[in-house]
């Protein structure tokens, strides 16, 4: 019962509790005992109730007393009680008064902080979500992706071969578990019809290495890696995404049979949600170990879980030994094949993305600093204006601590408001980023304003609030308050030190925003460069689309079907020309091949073989894509790779000709395709212009075009040159293909212009964000320039009036004021240009055909800053012209 009473004592004000608590508790025990003696158990219960009520009344009374005392002290504006809490309601009330009196000032501060904190929090959320958030796998620091390397061809990382996966699984000593993966696409048929779903063959070790536990069912067992292993059940595992999307999270899916690929399969497990790997495919099949596993195609991925204590360099060294052994055993296929390891932390974000995101975070950090400098400047100005108020309070006996607490409370309240508003802004900015993102930033969709974002926003609010509150507080009068009282009354410009500090701040703001603007400018210039690079093909009025062929489509009808489709489309109104091709430009995934001139020494090593891309195209391809013919002829419909008895014919790009036959005429010569693999000879019949098919930023590809007019099943991408808007042509194209065969779906239609934009999507995204931040920085900095000068002019009305009265000309005075305002801007501009020049080297990899020291960008930024600042100075300076000497002097 005493413990209960001790608990109840907590309702009392602390000071009272400290003074009397122990005695009250003892007394209560006494009362309790007495009541029990007098009235028994009932009396004791009554006493408890009575005691509690008594205590409550006492605490209410004590609180009222303390409040009254505080009010007494407050009327004097003095708080001598040094043991009072740090921030009292008095401070808060005074802050509220300040906000009520200067709502615009307060709103400006809150707005600037909200912008800075909001942008920082949003970018932080992205950086956290994309780069920092742990992977959904236990002990992921022990996970590596195992890749191959063909350093002889300049490829640091390639995929593995089928045999390579099993070789590594058998011969490594470094992994606790290891598994392979092959991407495939197959048709899933169920009640809602057939659908093409991304799938994968995985070995039983794959998910075990990742440490994944299925949310239902089981993973593949090692027995299922063997041809006989599955028995009659042909097992599949489905992804979390497919389970939810397609099966409505059916709790009984495990054990059911679905029709997938070539027949019925039994679902044995459901994976948890997550990125990467777990969402890369929707249906997983066991990868069966074949005796004659392929040693050529580089189509397999693999992951391994390192044994405890094994480092990545250790593992790489051991696996390299294995690769050397394989080279010795299979010289024909494995020569030059090495091993590369990619630690799990870079699975999500490539180095380029990592660099981009950190750059954006730094940019947004600069923006926040600019906002803070601006706010500090405003607070200092207010501090100068409030110097007299502080002096009065000091004279009345307020302690220095009190004044500082007052300043800090005000700035804290403002920064907390700014931060709360910033969180709302951050949410909006994050949504916007998710909407405009090119879609190749992994996990961006999952990023959210979560607990971490709150922590960041709250810490920023606290830090900034205290820092900007301390700045004017530390300048509060010390010791002798008489000068401050006098000075404040006369409304002078404040002391010299204050005005110099303001100049430093303005200069810093300008310097920071110049740095940001130059960064953004360089990216904009790069973007323009990328778009205007000679891409080697025309993109306007071109539409691309894919005709998806069901597995069941009879092969013998293929040529006829494709010919029909092309003829029908060609005959449509609005079509200038149409062609089919085996791969789309600007998309990865065209297969590579080694090239050689037939006259080369046959013993030339594979290492020296130039590597190019091959594309099967129909005869109108070059015309439709706008690729110019340079020499010879293009296909005329009579050339074919499937036609027995005829040699292959090839059209090559100018680069291939330059590499294989520099300075000679390549027409009629024989080129060896797939050099080192199956050495197919082909006659060169034409040379066409270079094309940046692998993306605008990579150089022109070494392209070999092969005829695809006759029965080539790879040719299923259409490209149509229209005279109408290509996007409006899509329905007509669908209809035309449907008329040939209504089972032929047209997928992924996209105008070539759009495809170009998509291919530079991440560059566009980065440019867009950095430009937005730079623009905000510019606005803040210019506002800072304006604010500082406007303040200084308003404080010097008297001086200006005096000068006018003494005969100064308006024009000269105007120039004088503007030059005073511009001086810190110029210093900041020079500092900003210098720092941008030093920092822009870090952006090198993000630039395209633009040097980090690009003079045009620097000059442009200087002009922008100069003009906007001059305007920002002119506006407050203009008030000089309106000063009436008589009024100004009277005010003095």
């Amino acid at each position, binding site marked *: 019962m005493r413990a209960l009473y001790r608990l109840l004592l907590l309702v009392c004000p602390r000071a009272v509790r400290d*003074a009397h608590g122990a005695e009250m508790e*003892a*007394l209560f025990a*006494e009362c309790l005992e007495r009541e029990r003696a007098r009235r028994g158990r009932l009396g004791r219960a009554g006493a408890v109730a009575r005691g509690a009520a*008594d205590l409550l009344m*006492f605490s209410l009374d004590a609180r009222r007393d303390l409040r009254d005392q505080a009010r007494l002290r407050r009327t004097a504006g003095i708080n001598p009680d040094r043991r009072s809490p740090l921030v009292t309601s008095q401070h808060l009330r005074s802050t509220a008064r300040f906000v009520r009196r200067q709502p615009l000032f307060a709103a400006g501060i809150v707005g600037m902080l909200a912008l800075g904190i909001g942008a920082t929090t949003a970018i932080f959320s992205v950086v956290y979500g994309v780069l920092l958030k742990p992977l959904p796998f236990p002990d992921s620091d022990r996970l590596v992706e195992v890749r191959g390397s063909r350093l002889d061809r300049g490829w640091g990382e390639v995929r593995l071969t089928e045999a390579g996966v099993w070789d590594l699984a058998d011969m490594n000593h470094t992994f606790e578990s290891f598994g392979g993966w092959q991407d495939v696409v197959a048709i899933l048929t169920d009640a809602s019809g057939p659908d093409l779903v991304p799938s994968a063959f995985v070995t039983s070790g794959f998910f075990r290495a990742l440490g994944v536990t299925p949310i239902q069912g089981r993973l593949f067992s090692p027995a299922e890696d063997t041809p006989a292993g599955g028995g009659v059940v042909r097992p599949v595992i489905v992804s979390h995404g497919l389970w939810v999307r397609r099966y409505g999270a059916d709790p009984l899916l495990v054990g059911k049979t679905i029709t997938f690929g070539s027949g019925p399969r039994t679902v044995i497990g459901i994976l948890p949600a997550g990125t990467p790997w777990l969402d890369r495919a929707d249906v997983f099949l066991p990868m069966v170990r074949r005796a004659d596993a392929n040693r050529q195609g580089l189509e397999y991925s693999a992951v391994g879980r390192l044994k405890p204590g094994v480092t990545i360099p250790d593992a790489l060294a051991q696996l390299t030994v294995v690769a050397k052994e394989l080279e010795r055993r299979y010289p024909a296929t494995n020569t030059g094949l090495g091993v590369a390891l990619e630690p799990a932390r870079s699975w999500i974000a490539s180095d380029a993305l990592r660099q981009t995101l950190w750059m954006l975070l730094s940019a947004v950090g600069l923006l926040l600093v600019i906002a803070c400098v601006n706010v500090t400047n405003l607070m200092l100005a207010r501090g100068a204006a409030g110097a007299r108020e502080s002096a009065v309070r000091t004279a009345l006996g307020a302690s220095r601590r009190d004044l500082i607490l007052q300043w800090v409370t005000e700035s804290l309240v403002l920064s907390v408001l700014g931060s709360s508003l910033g969180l709302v802004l951050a949410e909006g900015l994050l949504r916007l980023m998710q909407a405009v993102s090119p879609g190749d930033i992994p996990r961006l969709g999952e990023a959210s304003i979560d607990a971490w974002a709150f922590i960041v926003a709250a810490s920023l609010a606290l830090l900034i609030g205290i820092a900007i509150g301390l700045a004017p507080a530390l300048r509060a009068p010390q010791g002798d308050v008489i000068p401050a009282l006098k000075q404040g009354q006369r409304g002078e410009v404040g002391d010299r030190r204050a005005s110099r500090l303001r100049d430093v701040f303005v200069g810093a703001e300008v310097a920071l925003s110049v740095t940001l603007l130059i960064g953004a400018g360089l990216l904009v210039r790069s973007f323009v460069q990328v778009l205007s690079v000679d891409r080697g093909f025309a993109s306007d009025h071109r539409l691309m689309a894919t005709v998806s062929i069901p597995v069941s489509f009879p092969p013998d009808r293929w040529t006829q079907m494709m010919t029909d489709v092309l003829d029908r489309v060609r005959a449509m109104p609005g079509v200038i020309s149409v062609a089919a091709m085996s791969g789309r430009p600007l998309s990865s995934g065209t297969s590579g091949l080694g090239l050689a001139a037939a006259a080369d020494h046959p013993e030339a090593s594979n290492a020296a073989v130039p590597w190019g891309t091959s594309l099967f195209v129909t005869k109108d391809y070059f015309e439709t894509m706008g690729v110019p013919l340079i020499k010879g002829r293009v296909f005329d419909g009579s050339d074919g790779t499937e036609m027995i008895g005829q040699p292959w014919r090839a059209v090559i790009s100018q680069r291939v000709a330059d590499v294989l036959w520099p300075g000679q005429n390549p027409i009629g010569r024989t080129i060896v395709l797939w050099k080192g693999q199956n050495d197919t000879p082909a006659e060169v019949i034409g040379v066409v212009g270079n094309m940046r098919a692998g993306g605008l930023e990579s150089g022109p590809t070494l392209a070999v075009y092969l005829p695809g007019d006759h029965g080539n099943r790879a040719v299923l991408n259409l490209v149509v040159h229209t005279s109408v808007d290509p996007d409006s042509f899509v329905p007509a194209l669908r209809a035309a293909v449907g008329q040939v065969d209504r089972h032929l779906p047209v997928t992924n239609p996209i105008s070539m212009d759009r495809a170009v934009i998509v291919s530079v999507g991440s560059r566009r995204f980065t440019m867009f964000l950095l430009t937005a931040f730079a623009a905000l920085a510019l606005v803040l900095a210019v506002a800072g320039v304006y604010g500082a000068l406007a303040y200084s002019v308003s404080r010097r009305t008297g001086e200006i009036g005096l000068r006018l009265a003494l005969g100064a000309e308006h024009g000269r005075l105007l120039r004088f004021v503007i030059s005073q305002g511009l001086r810190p801007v110029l210093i900041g501009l020079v500092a900003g240009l210098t720092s941008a020049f030093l920092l822009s080297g870090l952006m090198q990899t993000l630039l395209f055909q633009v040097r980090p020291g690009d003079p045009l960008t620097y000059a442009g930024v200087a002009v922008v800053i100069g003009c906007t600042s001059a305007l920002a100075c002119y506006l407050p300076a203009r008030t000089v012209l309106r000063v009436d000497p008589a009024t100004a002097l009277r005010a003095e």
Partner: protein
Amino acid sequence: MADEFELPPHWFQILLALADHDLHGLAITKEVFDRTAGRLHLWPGMLYGALRKMTGAGFVAETSAPADFTSGGGRPRFYRLTPLGRRTCAAEARRLAAFVAAARAKKLIKA
């Protein structure tokens, strides 16, 4: 001032208890309880609330414990009557005595 207002009964009793010696809270309660034959029971909040208020009004003051004081533990606060408190208590006693005298005059009680 001392004559101007009526003291709450428990204030009077506390002052009365302190009239001849300095006491701590528990002792005050005991004395009041005994003197009123259990009719006035001072609960902790009541007692200390009154002591705080009377300290503020200058009727009582905290004082050091007498040299011979020993306790089971802790050092309770002792209170003493101030001259103002003594006058106030006396005034209240006189006020009450006047009522008693009136009752006696009306022969309600014997002398």
